[in-house]
């Protein structure tokens, strides 16, 4: 019952509505420049003044995209300011991709606004205690603002770019100065987001003319001009990193083909060199979707601000990353993201070498690049909120390797597993029939069955020109990945000549790629991030529970009466009553005594209270009132006085899978007696014979009965209590039983036998206790009872005379 209540309580607790945040939010349109009105919101915590957090949104979103995050920070005790960037939502102005003189200048105005607020903690006048956080477009805004405004005290930048020209024209080799192939689908998605919702403004929508024409030129030429590269660099954190001084948390996603992990590595390397307090997270989400890590990330970001804005003592790991191959949810078979922490950043990792087999990879390039391999399709991650986990059902491992257009540089079958954390490197020689080549490299694993897995479908593009006939050697920086390969797997460098996401050459070609060095891969020793730090309070609590339980059991133990009576009588029953829980009074004020050497008959019809009395005598049930003494000592459960008693009550009880002999033997060993057990005597009295060595399961009722009586007699106790011993016996056995009891009493011991067969007992007993409805009716020597009314009669007649016609069991006494 209690258990059910517990479960119910747990369920009810869980269903209670979750305490909601006292949502104090005020919206305001703020002018930041002539004609520019920025739509802002302020979230106030319960307690002010408090430090502030500026929360930027992703491309195509608005301040409404970050409400959940804003509320989480608000609940944590921060003043949160969100705003809609220029050109989006209700804010006016044009989009210039986080230009320092436009979007970033707006944010600086917002900081000044915070500097005037009484409810925001201030470092000094006009300089609020403020952090800035954002994802994607907002992440770049955060980094760029931190580089321009010294008032920023902490930064969190998620899934954002380091260098927009590298992100949109990726060239995955530091040997090559020219731009890589154009990431056309992603860029087109961006352009659409900037223009479609404001298409009424014309083909460029809300985008500034400068950016609009740069986009058009990139699509037309497939390559950026020098001016366009300069424009891209002007909104890239890489150009301004030396000005960032505020503690910075860089967060990047593994499921991100737009801004892959390397973007954050590049930023981190510079900040680390400049001595900026830094941490980095590589989570399992990203612009392509990935795993849902919002909760974990929100907690990490909050801790970052707690550490650097509230100045709390927090041990924040330098590098955290998520593995999704660790364990599978038992419920829905999805990967459970598990975080690890490391004390080194990936670019500081130890590089290990893995030799590759000599076979070159050869592949053709079809004219026009059709068909193309599909490594990943951009998710619609542009409305990205802070943790930007907009799912794309297209992300993943689509036909990334078209036969004939792709090849592999394989390792030998692994004899031990390897873990890669970060970017691997390899030197390759590339030949091309056209003197030019566009190739897409990735680090993959092949299972023994041949299945290729390309982590998150991320590729490292290379665009080569001027390849001599004998080929050109370059060192390729492979995509940063978190990859585990097992024994039996093969690690390989996958190379594809096509990829649908990129601008490809027009002319057909034939390429060969040969490994010129072993694969160098980064290894970081990482430990699982503690979900909750090891709390030694728990084991202490467990020990206290053990101690408490022992004390409780000891205190709550039944304390039997220490009263004694003189030893004249073997058994003294005093005013004994028993009322069961249902109110049935089975025994009512019963008193009698038994002396040594007597055979006492406890007599009465069914329901008279005989068995209840015997159970109390055996210490099985607790009297409601009164007490029993044996040899002058009180009887209670476990009372040593019971050691003088052998009993047979309400049928035999044996282990059915053991023989009669084993049962007797185990019983004797269990009862803590060291004296002789008189086994032979007992067996001869009860005439068990050879049946003793058969399993009790096979016994007849009579045999069980006799075995039970033998068990009661073991050790020849001073008092033998037998409850209905003749039940189920045939007349001959009854006669034998009668003799057994008489023989037992002859040894000077005492027998109490209960029965409802009065005539039967009349022939056996020396004394009688007559009961009816729990009450004593007569008590004394058999002869005296029988000669009552001066005339010898049967016990039965006397009994009926004593109780009248009140023989109906359970009839209420008037």
């Amino acid at each position: 019952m209690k258990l059910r209540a517990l479960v119910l309580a747990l369920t009810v607790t869980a269903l209670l509505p979750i305490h909601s945040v006292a949502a104090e939010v005020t919206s305001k349109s703020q002018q930041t420049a002539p004609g520019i009105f920025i739509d802002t919101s302020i979230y106030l915590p319960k307690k002010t003044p408090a430090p502030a957090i500026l929360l930027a949104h992703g491309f195509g979103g608005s301040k409404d995209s970050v409400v959940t995050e804003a509320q989480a920070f608000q609940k944590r005790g921060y003043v949160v300011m969100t705003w809609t960037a220029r050109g989006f939502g209700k804010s006016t102005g044009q989009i210039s991709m986080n230009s320092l003189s436009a979007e970033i200048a707006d944010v600086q105005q917002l900081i000044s606004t915070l500097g005037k607020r009484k409810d925001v903690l201030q470092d000094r006048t006009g300089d609020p205690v403020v952090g800035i956080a954002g994802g994607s477009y907002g992440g770049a805004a955060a980094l760029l603002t931190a580089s321009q405004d010294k008032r920023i005290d902490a930064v969190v930048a998620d899934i954002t770019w380091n260098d927009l020209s590298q992100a949109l024209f990726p060239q995955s080799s530091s040997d090559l100065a020219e731009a890589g192939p154009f990431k056309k689908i992603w860029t087109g998605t961006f352009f659409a987001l900037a223009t479609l919702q404001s298409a009424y403004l014309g083909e460029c929508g809300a985008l500034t003319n400068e950016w609009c024409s740069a986009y058009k030129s990139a699509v037309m030429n497939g390559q950026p001009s020098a001016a366009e590269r300069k424009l891209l660099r002007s909104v890239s954190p890489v150009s301004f990193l030396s000005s960032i001084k505020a503690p910075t948390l860089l967060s990047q996603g593994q499921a991100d083909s737009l801004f892959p992990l390397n973007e954050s590595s590049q930023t981190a390397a510079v900040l680390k060199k400049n001595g900026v307090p830094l941490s980095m997270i590589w989570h399992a989400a990203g612009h392509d979707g990935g795993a849902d890590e919002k909760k974990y990330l929100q907690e990490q970001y909050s801790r970052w601000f707690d550490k650097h804005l509230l100045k709390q003592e927090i041990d924040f790991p330098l590098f955290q990353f998520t593995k999704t191959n660790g364990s599978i949810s038992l419920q829905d078979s999805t990967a459970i993201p598990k975080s690890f922490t490391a004390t080194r950043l990936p670019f500081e990792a130890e590089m290990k070498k893995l030799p590759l087999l000599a076979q070159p990879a050869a592949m053709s390039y079809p004219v026009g690049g059709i068909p193309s391999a599909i490594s990943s399709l951009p998710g619609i991650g542009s409305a990205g909120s802070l943790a930007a986990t907009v799912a794309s059902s297209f992300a993943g491992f689509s036909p990334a390797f078209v036969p004939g257009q792709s090849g592999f540089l394989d390792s030998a079958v692994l004899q031990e597993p390897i873990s890669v954390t970060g970017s691997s490197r390899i030197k390759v020689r590339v030949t091309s029939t056209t003197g030019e080549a566009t190739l897409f490299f990735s680090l993959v694993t092949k299972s023994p069955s041949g299945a290729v897995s390309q982590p998150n479908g991320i590729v490292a593009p290379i665009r080569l020109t001027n390849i001599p006939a004998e080929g050109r050697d370059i060192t390729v920086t492979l995509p940063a990945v978190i990859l585990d390969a097992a024994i039996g797997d093969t690690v390989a460098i996958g190379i594809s000549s096509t990829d649908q996401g990129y601008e490809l050459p027009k002319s057909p070609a034939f390429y060969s790629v040969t490994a010129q060095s072993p694969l160098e891969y980064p290894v970081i020793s990482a430990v699982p991030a503690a979900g909750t730090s090891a709390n030694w309070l728990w084991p202490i609590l467990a020990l206290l529970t053990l101690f408490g339980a022992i004390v409780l059991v000891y205190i709550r133990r039944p304390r039997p009466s220490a009263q004694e009576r003189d030893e004249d009588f073997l058994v003294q029953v005093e005013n004994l009553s028993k009322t069961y829980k249902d109110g049935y009074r089975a025994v009512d004020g019963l008193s009698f005594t038994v002396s040594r050497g007597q055979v006492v008959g406890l007599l009465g019809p069914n329901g008279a209270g005989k068995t209840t009395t015997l159970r109390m005598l055996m210490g099985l049930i607790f009297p409601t009132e009164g007490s029993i003494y044996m040899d002058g000592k009180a009887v209670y459960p476990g009372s040593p006085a019971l050691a003088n008693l052998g009993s047979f009550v309400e049928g035999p009880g044996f282990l059915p899978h053991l023989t009669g002999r084993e049962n007797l033997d185990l019983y004797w060993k269990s009862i803590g007696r060291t004296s002789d057990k008189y086994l032979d005597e007992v067996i001869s009295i009860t005439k068990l014979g050879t049946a003793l060595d058969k399993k009790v399961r096979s016994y007849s009722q009579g045999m069980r009965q006799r075995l039970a009586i033998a068990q009661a007699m073991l050790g020849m106790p001073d008092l033998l209590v037998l409850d209905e011993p003749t039940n189920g016996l045939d007349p001959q056995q009854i006669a034998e039983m009668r003799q057994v009891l008489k023989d037992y009493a002859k040894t000077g011991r005492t027998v109490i036998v209960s029965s409802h067969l009065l005539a039967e007992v009349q022939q056996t007993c020396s004394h009688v206790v007559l009961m009816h409805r729990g009450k004593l009716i007569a008590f004394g020597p058999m002869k005296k009872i029988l000669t009552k009314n001066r005339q010898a009669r049967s016990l039965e007649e006397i009994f009926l005379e004593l109780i009248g016609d009140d023989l109906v069991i359970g009839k209420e006494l008037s």
Partner: protein
Amino acid sequence: MTYQANQTLPYRVELYRQLKRKRTAFAYGFVLSLPILVAIAVKFGPSGNSGGPTRLGSGTTDLIGLATLGAANFTTTMLYFSTPFLLVTVIALFNGDTVASEASWSTLRYLLASPVPRTRLLLQKIKVSLTLSLIAVLLVPLSAWIVGAIAFGFKPLQTPLGATFDNATALSRIGIMTGYLAISLLFVAGLAFYLSVRTDAPLGAVGVAVGTSILLNILDAITALGVVREWLPVHYAFSWFDALSITIDWSQMIRGASYCAMAGILFYALAIMKFAKKDVTS
């Protein structure tokens, strides 16, 4: 008088009484059959020997997919298989049946009247039940290791988390996992024992204990319950996974072990207190 209360129902006698029972042999038989059946299924099953190393399951880096690498991995996977139900049932059987079956055979009243003091009777029963339970828990890795060694040979333990341990380290990790598993089962053991004292129907006690474990597992699977789940003892059933990483994260195991031990102790204490004042009418 030759009676000595502290000599009643000696540990060896009670152990012998329980070991002679068929259900004990059956329970151990179930535990032993698990690794043997799995090994046979993998070795001779329809998907066996289809080129490359034989694998269990479809994954390559998860615990099940790694099972057939060698004895150590096989042992770890068998621990994983037996954690949620097999061991729970066996432990519930050993603890839930022990007092209730005496009641149903009517032997309980003769032991109590002989007299075996009530608290002593339960303490001896607890000792023996826990011994039997511990043997069952130990049988899983022992038999799995032997079967795994015969079927798949000795190879380093490779964990789903990418770590690799030589056989000595693997053995110590398996020791930690088994130890944790044994402690975390104290909750079910205590609950079953408490129910055993409260009822005369052995199967009822076992069934309710197993049923409760299942119910709590279902509740634990409902993520909407949030932090409430952290207060369910079954929430920590698989925390021994943490012993598979290079540096062991002890936090969940410490909490889980303490929590389950606490729950077990409370149930045992409750059982003793209830039994001390119970009218034995069976």
